[in-house]
């Protein structure tokens, strides 16, 4: 079965040129994400002392923060509108923010409040936002198949909307990954598959998990183009993503984009990372100071604008976190609600 191509002339978001305005937007987006993740980091750990208890505090449970992976989110989501779908993993915040999710509802869900996206039922790994068609899953690689379904529905309705399915390099060895690539290519579904290669599947380095040097090489095995961005550069991601998004919108089918990115912190918060042999070099690879530096050099930013962008991000994040902290916790008597519509 092949799915009909989108009608010509309906592409609503052709990739734009990488101009100065866009560069500053990309920087601004990455700063916002980092500011948010730093705020969650702080609140997550604050009340788990003196003895660290994962279930204690305002933000209980596991926490997987995306610091270092901002270029993927900013570079890919710049090509999307709220009508496009994004499915993410257990490490979803950067993509949620870049895709335009309401910061207050995001924060409230992370803090488990009734005002959260899922009324506190889902938590940080299970964020669902129908207004931006965003979803994520704690089961690795399993966000790929539903993305196929969203793409299927978009095409069936004659639109040029697409689904972006994001997972990690570790997930590229899970069955669902391979099934999804084959089926999307077979049916020419408007999907962009993104693999965030942050070198580590929890504690297992890529060299110990994956038989090929690049998942972009696997794309050919599934009948689709594959590209790998090696240097975690938001501009390189933007350009590669632009090609993949354009293909999908034009009805030419899926593509695979792998980005060699950086997990700045642990797999989860509380991860001592004793296994991690590359720790020393990590701070130097932080993509945000690198990009900031290049924009300063190019004269697109100066100290004033950097300060003001950071201050704006801080204000937005503080507003969101304050909203979350002031929101009511869900009523335990309603714990069994929402199983069924």
């Amino acid at each position, binding site marked *: 079965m092949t799915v009909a191509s989108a009608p010509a002339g309906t592409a609503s978001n052709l990739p734009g040129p990488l101009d100065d305005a866009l560069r500053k937007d990309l920087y601004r987006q990455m700063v916002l994400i980092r500011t948010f993740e730093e705020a969650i980091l702080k609140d997550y750990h604050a009340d788990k002392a003196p003895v660290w208890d994962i279930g204690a505090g305002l933000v209980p449970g596991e926490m997987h923060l995306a610091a270092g992976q901002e270029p993927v989110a900013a570079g890919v989501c710049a090509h999307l509108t709220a009508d496009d779908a994004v499915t993410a993993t257990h490490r979803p915040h950067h993509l949620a923010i870049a895709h335009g999710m309401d910061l207050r509802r995001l924060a409230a869900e992370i803090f488990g409040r009734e005002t959260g996206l899922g009324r506190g*039922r889902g938590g940080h790994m299970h964020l669902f936002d129908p207004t931006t068609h965003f979803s994520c899953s704690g089961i690795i690689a399993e966000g790929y*198949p539903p993305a196929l379904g969203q793409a*299927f529905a978009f095409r069936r309705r004659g639109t040029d909307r697409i689904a972006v399915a994001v997972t990690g390099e570790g997930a590229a060895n899970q069955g669902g990954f391979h099934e999804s690539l084959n089926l999307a290519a077979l049916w020419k579904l408007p999907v962009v598959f993104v693999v965030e290669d942050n070198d580590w599947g929890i504690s297992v380095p890529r060299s110990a998990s994956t038989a090929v040097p690049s998942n972009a090489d696997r794309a050919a095995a599934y009948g689709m183009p594959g590209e790998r961005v090696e240097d975690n550069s938001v501009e390189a991601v933007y350009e590669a993503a632009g090609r993949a998004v354009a293909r999908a919108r034009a009805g030419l089918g899926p593509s695979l984009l792998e980005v060699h990115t950086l997990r700045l912190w642990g797999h989860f918060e509380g991860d001592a990372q004793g296994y991690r042999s590359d720790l020393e070099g990590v701070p130097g690879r932080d993509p945000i100071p690198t990009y900031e530096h290049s924009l300063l050099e190019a004269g697109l930013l100066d100290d004033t604008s950097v300060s003001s962008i950071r201050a704006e991000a801080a204000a937005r994040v503080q507003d969101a976190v304050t909203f979350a902290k002031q929101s009511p916790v869900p009523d335990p008597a309603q714990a069994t609600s929402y199983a069924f519509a």
Partner: protein
Amino acid sequence: MTVTQNEVTGTTSTRRLTTAKAMAEGISQEMERDPDVFYIGEDVGAYGGIFSSTTGLLERFGPERIIDTPISETAFIGLATGAAVEGMRPIAELMFVDFFGVCFDQIYNHMAKIHFESGGNVRVPMVLTTAVGGGYSDGAQHSQCLWATFAHMPGMKIVVPSTPYDAKGLMISAIRDDNPVVYMFHKGVMGLPWMAKNARATDVVPEGPYTVPIGQARTARAGRDVTVVTLSLSVHHALDVADRLAADGVMDAEVIDLRSLVPLDREAILESVARTGRLVVVDEDYLSYGLSGEVVATVTDHDPSMLRAPVARVAIPDVPIPYAHGLEAAVLPNAGRIEAALRRVVGGG
């Protein structure tokens, strides 16, 4: 609350269908009514479904709506989930329930949980059809029922029709329901010409669309002496046994066809046992940690003194289902075992 089928049918038509044809007719009528309904699975197109669930549908609706897939259950059941999230109404077929191992994550962690995890903001209006059951020597990996495993996981409704009438009505209800509904059809009730003949697999089915409520059991046979709670093909066996025992003057058994497992019609169970005081559960799933225990607990949680005798559970013992015919027949909840259980519970002997 239970209803008897005769009351509901209320038709003078003699148009009969097998359960398989009734299921396909339900799908067809909903597909005519709603362009967002489509059917996706392995061999559901030209083949018409391995157990005839979609016979005739490809010719009527074409390959855009009756869709054959690669052997990729995780991918296509996940695809159905995503399409449902976007407001379509997919029906995805898991060819044999026994295959759930290769794709259960998409079913119980995604299809069944997205509505809850989203605080009710996202709906998943899909149907997951699957063939269950044994009795024809298909071996341990192709003969299971496993409904207890699915019913145990929260967030998905489960229906198990035993008759052509219910097969069509429950299919239409399942498609119209905004929740994920697992529709489990026993191969032995489908009326397939290549399986052992089953007279109860063919019956009158109204021609137009109609619904059977999900979560409501049916009194298949009213009786005084004992309540038999059962489902699927076991309803047929229980009725055969009950009719014969009544004709022989031995006892008058009431047979309750559960029809739905989630929601479970606990009221129907309690109402009947309150009258008869005796309970036999017949369940083609494994004995321990499953449906039959749940039915018993329904009674004992409420009032154990309702029971005048210990309960009998006729189920598959806790072993993989054997291949050789005689061995398989020994573990299935067949007429002989049902009769022995009834005599024990009613006669004390």
